[in-house]
């Protein structure tokens, strides 16, 4: 009985450090970076972030607009196991891809964000939803004033660029291929290298 209890104790004690090492191995962050991330992550009221938190964060950063929809999509992109909350592991893995991943991985992540129902295809409706969400974040006080069909036009441009075989949906390969051809996009992918 003693040994079992001891084992259990040691198991619980050993649990935390293992997670840190595990995360270090799985993600591309160093231990220090993970520490910094965790401190920020833990500094809030609820045990783990929900969509509300993402919404709050975005409202603070983009006060003029309405971040509800975008927060929803973004949350779903991070919540890979779809259990309604983002654990620290999910968070770290997401950030690792975004900040330290290869361009391929980043594009993959972006595709995942746009593909709302995660079926492997981006339809025009999904893209329109995403686009509207992004435009909503800008808010009403913009110059020039936002037109009604601006998101739709933007989607059209996007599809013209990305949809190679013109079948109305964008697959992951089309997406990655088109993006790799576009210099601007390639360059902007490297933009946030030094965030942490």
């Amino acid at each position: 009985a003693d040994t079992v209890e001891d084992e259990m104790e040691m198991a619980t004690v050993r649990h935390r450090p293992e997670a840190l090492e595990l995360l270090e191995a799985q993600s591309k962050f160093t231990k220090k970076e993970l520490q910094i991330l965790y401190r920020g992550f833990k500094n809030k009221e609820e045990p783990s972030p929900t969509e509300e938190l993402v919404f709050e964060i975005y409202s603070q950063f983009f006060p003029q607009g309405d971040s509800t929809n975008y927060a929803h999509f973004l949350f779903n992109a991070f919540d890979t196991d779809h259990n309604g909350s983002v654990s620290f592991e999910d968070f770290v893995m997401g950030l690792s891809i975004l900040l330290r991943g290869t361009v391929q991985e980043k594009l993959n992540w972006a595709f995942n964000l746009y593909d709302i129902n995660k079926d492997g295809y981006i339809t025009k409706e999904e893209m329109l939803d995403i686009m509207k969400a992004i435009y909503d974040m800008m808010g009403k006080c913009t110059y020039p004033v936002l037109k009604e069909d601006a998101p739709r036009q933007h989607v059209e441009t996007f599809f013209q660029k990305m949809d190679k075989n013109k079948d109305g949906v964008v697959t992951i390969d089309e997406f990655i291929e088109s993006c790799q051809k576009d210099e601007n996009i390639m360059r902007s992918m490297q933009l946030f290298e030094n965030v942490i």
Partner: protein
Amino acid sequence: MAAGVAAWLPFARAAAIGWMPVANCPMPLAPTEKNKRQDELIILNVSGRRFQTWRTTLERYPDTLLGSTEKEFFFNEDTKEYFFDRDPEVFRCILNFYRTGKLHYPRYECISAYDEELAFYGILPEIIGDCCYEEYKDRKRENAERLMDDNDSENNQEGSMPSLSFRQTMWRAFENPHTSTLALVFYYVTGFFIAVSVITNVVETVPCGTVPGNKELPCGERYAVAFFCLDTACVMIFTVEYLLRLFAAPSRYRFIRSVMSIIDVVAIMPYYIGLVMTNNEDVSGAFVTLRVFRVFRIFKFSRHSQGLRILGYTLKSCASELGFLLFSLTMAIIIFATVMFYAEKGSSASKFTSIPASFWYTIVTMTTLGYGDMVPKTIAGKIFGSICSLSGVLVIALPVPVIVSNFSRIYHQNQRADKRRAQKKARLARIRVAKTGSSNAYLHSKRNGLLNEALELTGSTEDEQHMTKGTSLIESQHHHLLHCLEKTTGLSYLVDDPLLSVRTSTTKNHEFIDEQLFEQNCMESSLQNYPSSRSPSLSSHHGLSTSCCSRRHKKSSHLPNSSLPATRLRSMQELSTIHIQCSEQPSLTTSRSSLNMKSDDGLRPNCKAAQITTAIISIPTPPALTPEGESRAQPGSPGHSTNIPTTTTSNIVKVSAL
């Protein structure tokens, strides 16, 4: 930004990668961390007690002492720690503010010591959390009043009056009789004469002695002359007093409208009216009624008695409660009067001739007076009469103690509610001012950022340092994020300033304005003329500049100008226009034809070219004069903060600038 939120900035920035494939325009460059330091523990030694915290914790609030580079002044090289020779107890609260984002006010702490510490560390007291704010404000007000009283009594004792004008001295003497002996004498004399006047009014009506003719005369008629002389004397004194007060009042209009002056006027008017009207039999009836108003002289005592004033004020503030009591009483009276009337209708020679006549009975019965001049005679009447008197006991006797206790409760409650409302308004206004800084700062730094790019392109570096100071890293990252969103959507943020009634925007439209067109636009918008330059030289000027867009956008950007006083110029952001040419023409110069080139009214900028050329037309204010800085420099004037321009409401509330 709020404490927790700053920590999430890396997350938001990383997620911004999601916009990249969608964006049509190239993204702005990210702000570089000039000296990237790993997060480290720093030691704060406050009078011997060591506190340790992460550097990034302190940097959450970059415009406080600990968050900015100001703390370097306190860095002790030998011990490698920051030494502050201040109170460690209060420092605990202040450090907790950095950690949790909420500033608390400890109750045991002296309010002025706490204020001093807050001022030293550069923290606005308005940030105190709701849990402690009321207490803080109450203590502060108490303290202020105490200091004011002390000052007053000091002044009195010293007798040192700065050279007030004669008028001001008189007013002071009137309002506060303890300022000088003359004032005191005046105070007592007027009090005496008020008393004399009231007593004479009373004694006038006492019958004193008879005259032959077996008729009892009131004293007023018997010694008519004597009384008349007394009355005249009193009225003289009152008139002189009133005129003196009127002369000395700082705001005569306000004085005339005040309650006390109305009482004064009402007190002396009957006499003058009586002088004017002679012993005319027709109007003497009216004249007699006017004499009733002489009794109002007794209200003049309220200047002499603090208690009367408080009572009056209390009644005024409990008016609604009293009103309700009156209303419910009226309802009960009407009900019972009706019932009694119909009950007594049958009996002969009944005094209850009508319902209004029954009112009198009802009131007398309900208040348990029971004069007995009207009594019910029928059985039904007696039954209802007894019900009336029983309910009268309940209706009257019960609410009175409740109302009395309500007086004090409602009095204090009203005070507290008004206080809270006033505090809240002032407080929100000040916080709004501080927050305005952040949104304006974004546009400001964006211009700075673009200015930097331009300067880098053209190679003049001496102005670069000018622009890069003043924004913290977190701020610049936040602004970069906002800028990325602008680029993704092809729109740009607009700051609407209702006070200035000028629209500012940093446009990224495609026309390169040549000087002529620019000046033309400016004159059309009736601006001050200022030199426009195509080269990015920094000519500073303090004029109002607006965003002069091209002809195409003129109609959508009407720019009414308002001439601002010089004081406001300091507090507003200068507006600059930056035109970025994202066209395929790599050349810096352009011609009129290019203005018409992008005539499609679509929002999508056709940004295919890699080159960005900027033309800077006007110059932002120097970084030292941001509204943030100004709001910090004026801690004691919450009222003034409303003059400082604010941005649109949806823009302000959510971002906290600290």
